[in-house]
């Protein structure tokens, strides 16, 4: 019993630093600007300004931004899951000349920072006539090395006997993938999907660069309207940030079990 109390006390103490920023966000979102900028340990607002949420949502067309964000993130996630499953399977199971080199080249793309590819990507998107379109927001991010790596590791973890048995029963690669391989790597696929969704959901610079219209913009761009050269409307920013953050938190809780399985299964520590 004593051990349990100690364990829960330690866990609670460990959770506090994680939870406090969220509580602070919530408290700040309900304060006036003067109070929100006052450094104080007190979290409770003097006045509970619920209308801050209305003001924040009126500061930009957040409805449209949310639609765009979910559409772009969902389609991107679907593409990433398909491409990384296929590529991961190829690198894990298929034997062909140059496989190691090709996989090395794919991994090497992880060493190139986004900033270095921003201009060539923009030039390409622009010349294809995709500026200010969903294509510009989605297509450049439909495959990535990290997801391919994760799926390759997952497929490598499947015993070769499964594949051999499926072959005897007449399965080709695609059927094996659909009926045997993918169902067995669902935790990793969920992790890949979650990473892809979050990466797309949280991206700011690329959507800012390739869009020129509110009709194409996403929520992260919307958050920039609260910070100007003269100061930051920190209370309204916290309102909008909380609203923007909620779907990702909900998504994490929904996929938590698969996510943890996926992470432990891949050998990734952080």
């Amino acid at each position, binding site marked *: 019993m004593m051990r349990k109390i100690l364990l829960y006390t330690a866990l609670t103490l460990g959770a506090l630093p994680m939870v406090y920023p969220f509580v602070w966000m919530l408290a700040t979102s309900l304060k006036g600007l003067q109070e929100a*900028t*006052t*450094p104080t340990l007190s979290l409770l607002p003097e006045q509970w300004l619920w209308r801050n949420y209305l003001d924040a949502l009126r500061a930009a067309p957040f409805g449209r931004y949310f639609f765009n964000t979910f559409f772009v993130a969902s389609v991107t996630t679907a593409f990433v899951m398909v491409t990384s499953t296929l590529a991961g399977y190829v690198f894990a199971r298929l034997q062909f000349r140059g496989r190691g080199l090709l996989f090395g080249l794919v991994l090497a793309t992880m060493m*190139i920072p986004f900033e270095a590819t921003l201009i060539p990507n*923009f030039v390409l998107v622009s010349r294809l006539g995709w500026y200010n379109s969903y294509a510009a927001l989605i297509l450049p991010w439909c495959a990535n090395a990290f997801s391919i790596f994760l799926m390759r590791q997952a497929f490598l973890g499947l015993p070769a006997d499964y594949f051999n048995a499926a072959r005897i029963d007449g399965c080709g690669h695609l059927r094996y993938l659909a009926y045997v391989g993918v169902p067995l790597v669902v935790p990793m696929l969920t992790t890949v999907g979650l990473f892809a969704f979050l990466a797309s959901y949280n991206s700011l610079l690329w959507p*800012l660069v390739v869009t*020129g219209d509110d009709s194409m913009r996403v929520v992260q761009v919307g958050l*920039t309207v609260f910070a*100007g050269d*003269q100061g930051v409307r920190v209370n309204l920013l916290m309102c909008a940030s909380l609203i923007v953050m909620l779907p990702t938190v909900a998504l994490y809780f929904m996929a938590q079990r698969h996510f943890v399985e996926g992470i432990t299964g891949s050998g990734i520590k952080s």
Partner: protein
Amino acid sequence: MRNFFFFCLLFGVALIGCGPAPVQNHASRVQFTPINSEVAAFWDRQTTDNAVLLHAITDEYNASHNGLPVKIVQTGNYGDIYRKVTASIHARTLPAMAASYGAMTLEYAKAGAVVSFDTLIDHPETGLTEREMADFFPAVIEANRYEDLDGEMYSFPFTKSVLVLFYNKRVLAKAGIDAPPATWDAFLAQCRAIKVATGNPAWAIDVDASTVNAMIFSMGGEVFRGKETLFDSQPAQRTFALLQTLARENLAYPIPPRTFNDETALAQDTIAFCFRPSSNRPYIEQLMDDPDAWGIAPIPQVDPEDPHTILYGANISIFDTTEEQRAAAWGFVKAFTSRDTSVRWSIGTGYLPIRKSAVDHPDMQRFWAQNPRNRVAFDCLSFAKSEPNRLGWQEVRGLIEKTATALLAGISDAPQAGADLKRTADAVLARQ
């Protein structure tokens, strides 16, 4: 062998990626296409209330003018705008205009992407008359001429402000002070008195190169002449010595970069002074619980009879795309900087009206009558000057901030810091 081949391939890819960016002679013509041919897109940085006003002004302009409508596109901060314009220059497709600082405009001009305003101003039909040009404060026009580009004007004033001193009357009163300092000696004395009375530092410093340069100007100095910087000059040395004294006696402290902690500390009666652009006035107004508890003054001077401060702010660059886009952009710039709109923009945002005739405008007079302290910044405009528009100056600004931070941290000595800064800054400028 396979590894060696792989390494060579990677190295080759890296080498290709490190190739130089295309640079054009600013005089040569490069063909750019409009990023949106249906509107004259204006990539801008304004947010919140300023953005609302800018959109309203633009909508009214579009409703009353023929030709391409102007469309404001909020494009993040100035760094984001620079990245987006740079990418667009490579893609050969540009908006009609963008908000830009001098260093940004220089880069655009080097790539042959911006049009010279001299040509637009001198145009017999659509240009500006001598009388109209004389109505602009000379400093705001001169700030848009680029010596490295034959002194041509590649941008037009947009959001201008000057460095001013914001002060908290309640904190001053605690130290028995009834007026802000007019000289740097008085400033130091007041900081000491405030420290004694409150136990707190008097000034929270936003370590910004413009503030340091403004201090040098107000000490009677310059930061650049001919082909070299003047950070070892007496006014610069006095500035660095003052910063060192303030830090050593714990009369001032630096705030984290890119925060507004000095403004919040001022509003909370923690400090007495903060130096900020006059355009920050509306935000500080919102932070203050009592409208009479604070004031604005010109920054302290070494000689109040010969005052100086720094001119801040973004400009508008027009890109060299189609005639239709250029005409729409120039039409908008002229309308936006007209007397009436300039006054309206100033009252609504805290930026300065850039025309001398604004002083007599009834709306301006009414505004100043209701808020007398807001006139201070406008009065400073006549003696404000901008930083040099030189290639490499952005890098020099970083060196200035590094020097000021070292002085405030107590890890550098003023005379040596000035000499070191001059040496490194001159080397940067010589490299260009």
